[in-house]
């Protein structure tokens, strides 16, 4: 407040009318340019993806597994690998994130040191560089076992997904009115029943949104997979072995000097982006309706 009074002390609204209007117009113009640049960047990215990716995107690219350059390989195993690893990551992250979020909102009041500690750690995890998560999982799940594995990749993705789920779960549960909890308690429900069957149920949409956002964030991640699931040229369904994934394949193929690999990289990039944007749009639409 003090800032406001000091900085506005020299300000008389009805003085310098023409100059202030000029400034206003200039600022409006610059603001519009800034917003325009961001929209232009999005358009440029989408246009680049579409114009370069659509040619490589064929039934063969989606149905056939990867292969050596010139052999007409596709992306099928990478797509499936991405789906498996992301799904497994959510399978690990969802119960963990929900549990942690419930703990923070139901038991984590201001006096609870442990809870504020966890809240801080979850915030840190949300902004930790994703490549460090990859290094971490490499050290605990890859190096001791001596081989890369899809499971390690899923764990790395799960570590990135958990803090997002924790944050949304806690926020959404805190929005549940106290009257609802009191009504449950008055009917004789125990606390865990109130939490799970009243609060969590009424916050369902918001919690689901958090899980979907985590899915969107995780499905485009490349860096944490580089040292954990590594990538694989062949079909592989074993969680105990390296598994291909779309982002890592894009990374490997985009820098290659073979024309067909680069084209596949663009097709993969188009697929990943469309998937991620589709999830985001769906979340936004459902949020608007709810």
């Amino acid at each position, binding site marked *: 407040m003090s800032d406001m009074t000091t900085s506005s002390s020299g300000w008389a609204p009805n003085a310098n009318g023409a100059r202030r209007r000029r400034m206003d117009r200039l600022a409006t113009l610059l603001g519009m340019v800034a917003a325009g640049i*961001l929209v232009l960047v999005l358009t440029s990215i989408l246009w680049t993806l579409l114009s*370069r990716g659509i040619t490589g995107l064929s039934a063969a690219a989606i149905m056939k597994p990867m292969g050596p350059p010139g052999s007409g390989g596709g992306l099928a195993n990478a797509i499936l690998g991405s789906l498996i690893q992301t799904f497994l990551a959510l399978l690990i992250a969802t119960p963990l994130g929900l549990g942690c979020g419930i703990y923070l909102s*139901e038991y984590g009041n201001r006096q609870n040191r442990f809870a504020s500690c*966890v809240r801080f750690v979850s915030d840190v*995890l949300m902004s930790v560089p994703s490549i460090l998560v990859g290094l971490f999982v490499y050290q605990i799940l890859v190096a001791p076992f001596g081989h890369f594995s899809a499971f390690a990749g899923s764990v790395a993705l799960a570590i990135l997904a958990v803090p997002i789920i924790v944050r949304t779960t806690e926020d959404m549960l805190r929005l549940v009115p106290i009257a609802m909890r009191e009504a449950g308690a008055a009917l004789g429900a125990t606390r865990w029943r109130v939490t799970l069957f009243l609060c969590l149920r009424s916050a369902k949409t918001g919690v689901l949104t958090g899980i979907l956002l985590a899915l969107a964030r995780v499905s485009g991640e*490349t860096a944490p997979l580089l040292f954990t699931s590594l990538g694989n040229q062949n079909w592989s369904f074993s969680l105990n072995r390296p598994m291909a994934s779309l982002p890592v394949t894009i990374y490997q193929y*985009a820098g290659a000097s073979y024309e067909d690999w680069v084209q596949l990289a663009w097709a993969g990039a188009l697929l990943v982006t469309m998937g991620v944007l589709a999830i985001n749009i769906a979340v936004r639409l459902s949020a608007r309706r709810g």
Partner: protein
Amino acid sequence: MTLAPARQPDKVSAPEYKEKRSSADTAFQAIVGGCSLVVLIALGGLVVLMGVGGQEAFRTFGLGFTFRDVWNPVTNDYGAWAPLFGTIVSTLIGVLIAMPLAFGTAFWLTAIAPPKIAAVVGTAVQLLAAVPSIIFGMWGFFTIVPFMARHVQPFMMHNFRHVPGISLLIHGAPFGTGLMTAGIVLAMMIAPFMTAVMRDVFGAMPGMLRESAYGLGATRWDVMWKVVVPWSRTGMIGATVLGMGRALGETMAVTFVIGNVTSVGWSLFAPRSTVASLIALQFPESPVGSLRLSSLLALGFILMLLSFASLSLARMLRKDGK
């Protein structure tokens, strides 16, 4: 409430049910508490393992490892300064470009654009924030890099080659890759994110302040610059610091466009490397137990500290603002 001040402090969100505390309740609390413990251990483990892994590098080169300007796998001699320099400078360039962009966009969206257009543009900006970083990397590599190599760098060389000071900054062959390109791509990545935070900060200001300024005859820019900005200054700095944290650890977008040469110098257009890109590129070829691997982990530890520091700063500012 005032009669029993000692009893009411922590009952804000969840009333305590002392009477009906069954063993199922205890078990439930133990389960969700256990989940929290796992989250806590995950981060603790992350920090500790980075430190332990990098121990050998720190032992060999001392704490001076951080500021040694060598990265030579052939002679097995390592120091963190070159990648650290790249990380810091590219992040600074990114933040310097992204801040006015984000501020301008947030200003335009909250104060000027008609609601319908603002909704569309706002959605576009949020979608841009959701684009995976590897896509930014590819886009930068195939559009920004050629543009820098063919237009920006020749233009700079042609016009500023003989200006002392600036000639140092633009020195180098026009590869198109380098700190400047990385900074631009990073800016495009973090600007939408910063815009979203700034919009929230601006929106949190009581409407009364804005209305009374308008009532006194202020223009929209007057309101923005003399009412909204002073009111939300800490929030805006917090948004910037959060964006900075993202840029610090960004791997994929940077690896594509920075050129990946471990060197230090004045030129903003010469290829360099960052901590994250160096880890991504060299980790796969570093054998287990080697000094190189340890040095990479030590780099990771330093990066962790940097990102931790920026997040703590952002949180501190947010608390001050409230």
